[in-house]
């Protein structure tokens, strides 16, 4: 799974969000590192919807413009949790190796 896709799923895990809301949330979750563009965002949303990981929650008209809110499906929540675990395991494995390197260097 690519990083922007992971962050998009995380952005709507706690609450449904609309397009711009997802862009903002992804920026916050990545400490400003990942700035989503509209083309990339909607390409990812399209793919995720096709895979059954997200779905539309509701629509609202604000100042005459259409906002469409997306949320995670049950499958989406499962997949996000599994991916978060996987990344955690990778990070722990890397930290383990770093600790060994430091210990070995100090000896």
């Amino acid at each position, binding site marked *: 799974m690519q990083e922007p896709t992971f962050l998009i799923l995380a952005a709507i895990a706690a609450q449904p969000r609309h397009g711009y809301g997802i*862009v903002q949330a992804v920026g916050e979750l990545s400490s400003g590192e990942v700035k989503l563009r509209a*083309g990339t965002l*909607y390409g990812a949303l399209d793919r995720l919807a096709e895979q059954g990981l997200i779905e539309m929650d509701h629509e609202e008209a604000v100042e005459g413009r259409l906002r469409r809110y997306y949320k995670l499906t049950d499958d989406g929540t499962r997949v996000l949790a599994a991916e978060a675990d996987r990344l955690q395991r990778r990070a722990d494995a890397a930290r383990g190796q770093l600790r060994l390197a430091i210990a070995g260097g100090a000896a």
Partner: protein
Amino acid sequence: MTGDERRYRRLLLAYPGRYRRDHGTEIVTTLMEMGEPGGGWDLIAGGVRQRFRLPGRPLVVVAAVLVMLATAVLGAVAGSWAGERTFAPLPSRAAALGLLTAAVSDPGGDDSVPVLRIGDSLLLDGVPVARHPASDPDRIATTVRDGIAASGWTITSFTVAPAYPHPESAQPGTFFSGAYLDAARDGVLVHGRVDYRYDAGRFYLGGFTATAFAARTAAYLPLTVGGGVLGLLAGWLLVAAMAYRLRSSSVGRRRAVAALTGATLVVAAPPVVAVVLRAIQLAIHVDDRRFPVFTLHSALRVSTYVDGPPTWLVPACAVAALLLGALTMLPARQEKLQTAP
């Protein structure tokens, strides 16, 4: 509508129509809220990507590959036809007789038909009315060659055949091959043979027979290959568009489209195979100037082979495949209603 909104709407044209109807407004809203003054160019890349996006389901991928093969063949056939438009026309009957006269001086002996049109070539058969003796067969051959050259043709190849060791022991009136001759002029190629006869201790000019056909022009291969590439892309876009359209369709509708697609591919198989075989022939003989060009679109004509499949099979299947393909792409009534405002 503000200027930015107008610009975004224009950029959205990169997306397929269906997708624009489904998501256009929300994308513009998002762009307006993001507030990038010069942004939105990633929409073009996104739109093109969306047009080519295929669902990963194996059946769809297999269908896409097969459809792309068929549309690539269709595109290459169209390119081949366009390429042949640039070929030189075959010589007129008068011009062909002129060539034969230059070769044998008085063609038309033995009740033969000097000029005959068969498919993409002219068959030339020049048998002299009078007997033209010569001291040796080589002289006969070079006389013919010089006559042809003098009338404006460029001799591209001239090979004298090995002399027949005992012409006197052959049946009287036998034709012996004297020389092989290739000529070219104004985009037309001639591939021919000079024969001599041996009779009562003397050598005579037997005749000059040849085929004349158009040479392959420089435009032919690029047009054919280019057509094939465009056809390939068109097939991909078609499958992607259909797959997107069928997303929200019933299982019954999807099965019907799958069945129609399968039927179209089956019916398209004979013409596709015929064109691919012709393409292999073309590739093998690409620089061979002894034959007319193996054009791809000529593989779709009524066959001239007596043995084998029925002669009308390939052209009939080509037409049927096009009709079935068009039928497959017709939207169902439910899909039409969905797009109503």
